């Protein structure tokens, strides 16, 4: 029955939107678990230093390479530092760098995409061509080249993440605009003489938010991956900070003697990336079309 209005079947979603989203999320246990993991790590990132049993940088020569125990849940490393505390505090960096970087990319990328899509013509060409160039590089390579010249620092890492992901957000925002601008409610808005800014931000943006939110969570997962890889390669946050990627790299030498040094930070990275991806996947369904397709 495509193309025909489904009389009153829209009623299936009559409860308010948020309630609908929540109900849909609850129906997907896997996505729910991912969301839980994401928020667990978020809490850890916010509280990390407060709940860590030890100072993450405190060395203790008497406690080197201890296996996991009640005193050190995840054991200690080659300097006698508490691995558990280092993993907890490491979460902070991930959210700080990846989170702010992704957010920055989302804001700038979305604005550029909206502009390109709505103003069109030369602006569109110019903006999208430049952004395409960023997409011509494998992400890790571009990050390395930029960091090599700018030097590793928190701010530079954030900027690099933002630069890497701006094109994705811009593309999505732009395609949303191109799709929406032919919709009749946008034409109705033009027919009553709405300003361009009103159409962009009040009519279009709210409709573009769900896919942008999904994209943001995917990008955040990738940024964790990226920060960890850079850390592993020695190009991430400089030493005193307990970067997960660098922890894994340093732990390789001691793998036979103290595998926990490597396994716990590695597990933290994987768990957070997987959790966030599952959440993103679930969000896609949650925001999806209102009624299940193909039921008739």
């Amino acid at each position: 029955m495509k193309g025909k209005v489904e009389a009153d079947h829209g009623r299936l979603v009559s409860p308010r939107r948020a309630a609908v989203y929540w109900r849909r999320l609850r129906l997907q246990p896997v996505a729910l678990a991912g969301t839980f993991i994401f928020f667990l790590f978020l809490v850890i990132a916010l509280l990390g230093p407060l709940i860590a049993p030890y100072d993450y940088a405190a060395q203790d020569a008497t406690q080197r390479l201890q296996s996991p125990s009640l005193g050190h849940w995840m054991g200690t490393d080659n300097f006698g530092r508490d691995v558990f505390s280092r993993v907890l505090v490491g979460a902070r960096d991930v959210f700080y760098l990846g989170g702010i970087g992704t957010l920055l990319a989302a804001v700038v990328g979305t604005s550029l995409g909206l502009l390109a899509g709505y103003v069109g013509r030369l602006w569109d060409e110019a903006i999208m061509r430049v952004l395409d160039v960023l997409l011509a590089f494998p992400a890790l390579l571009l990050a390395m080249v930029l960091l090599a010249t700018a030097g590793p620092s928190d701010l530079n890492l954030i900027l690099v993440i933002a630069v890497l992901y701006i094109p994705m957000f811009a593309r999505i925002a732009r395609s949303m605009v191109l799709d929406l601008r032919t919709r009749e409610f946008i034409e109705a808005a033009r027919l009553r003489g709405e300003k361009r800014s009103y159409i962009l931000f009040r009519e279009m943006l709210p409709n573009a938010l769900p896919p942008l939110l999904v994209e943001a969570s995917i990008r955040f997962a990738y940024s964790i991956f990226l920060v960890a890889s850079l850390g592993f390669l020695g190009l991430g946050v400089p030493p005193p900070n307990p970067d997960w990627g660098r922890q894994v790299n340093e732990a390789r030498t001691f793998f036979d003697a103290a595998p926990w040094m490597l396994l716990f930070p590695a597990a933290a990275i994987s768990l957070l990336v997987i959790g966030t991806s599952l959440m993103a996947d679930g969000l896609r369904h949650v925001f999806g079309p209102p009624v299940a397709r193909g039921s008739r």
Partner: protein
Amino acid sequence: MTGFILRRLGFVILTVLLSSVLVFGATHVLPGDVATMILGREASEQAKDSLRQELGLDRSLVVQYGSWLSDLARGDWGTSLSTGEDVRGVTLERLSNSAMLALVAFFMYVPLGIFLGVIAAWRRNSYIDQVISAGSLAFVGLPEFVTAVLLIAVFSRALHWFPSSSAIAPGTGFFSALPSLILPGLTVSLTSLAYVVRMTRAGTAEVLETDYVRTARLKGLSAGNVLFRHVLRNSLLPTVTVIAAGVGWLIGGLIVTESVFGYPGLGRLVLFAVQRRDLPLIQATTMVIVTIFALANLAADIMYALLNPRIRYR
């Protein structure tokens, strides 16, 4: 069709050119003085000045870019600042090593990924789909350096099947290098495999929902006929593009993997260049990678057009 290919080719050239501006800009305009970078902070002003002159850094940026680009195009890629070797020689040699590794990985993950993705889609929501889908998600989340370390722990330390280091000697042939290629190849494959599986599953599941697949089923065709003649023909079209886009992942994976296994490929060379801030080396390796990436996308576009009658007949 020819017009289409020419247009795409022009697009590739434009992309590579614009990328060269970015590469040049990143290595020259961003904060940091090149001479200081090369010689270190302790070097005397005089030494830096003479180096600047030698490198032509006193000329205007546009002129520098022009001469750099024409040198690059003519095959004069300069000498490495840290080793003094000819950049072109090193880069091309490492490139062929990486190509061997990438090839091994490619043949591992592309067929397997398509296979698993199609199975998962064909048996949507079944037990096997859930295993494949969850598994692929897990592997997407597993960084290469973690996979690499774990694979080494199992297959080389515990089982002694493969060497833990893949530091092959220069000029090693493909078959003698093969044992050293398996573990790094597997490492790179796992992440990319997951990516291909997910994309193939999504594309195939979408096609399975279409009216024309319903028509094919209601024609009473056998499952095999429906799958091979009607579903895959359409669902693998986007997969071609996806695989090309995945080359970016593959290259990123190579950088990490090669450094874990000590494999003398292009990825490790990039890392080396970046760590040493070896400008000519960074520039050359980056441009090579960008060009390969662009060509992969071009190949995908052409394949897509060849397989799709809606583009073919225009």
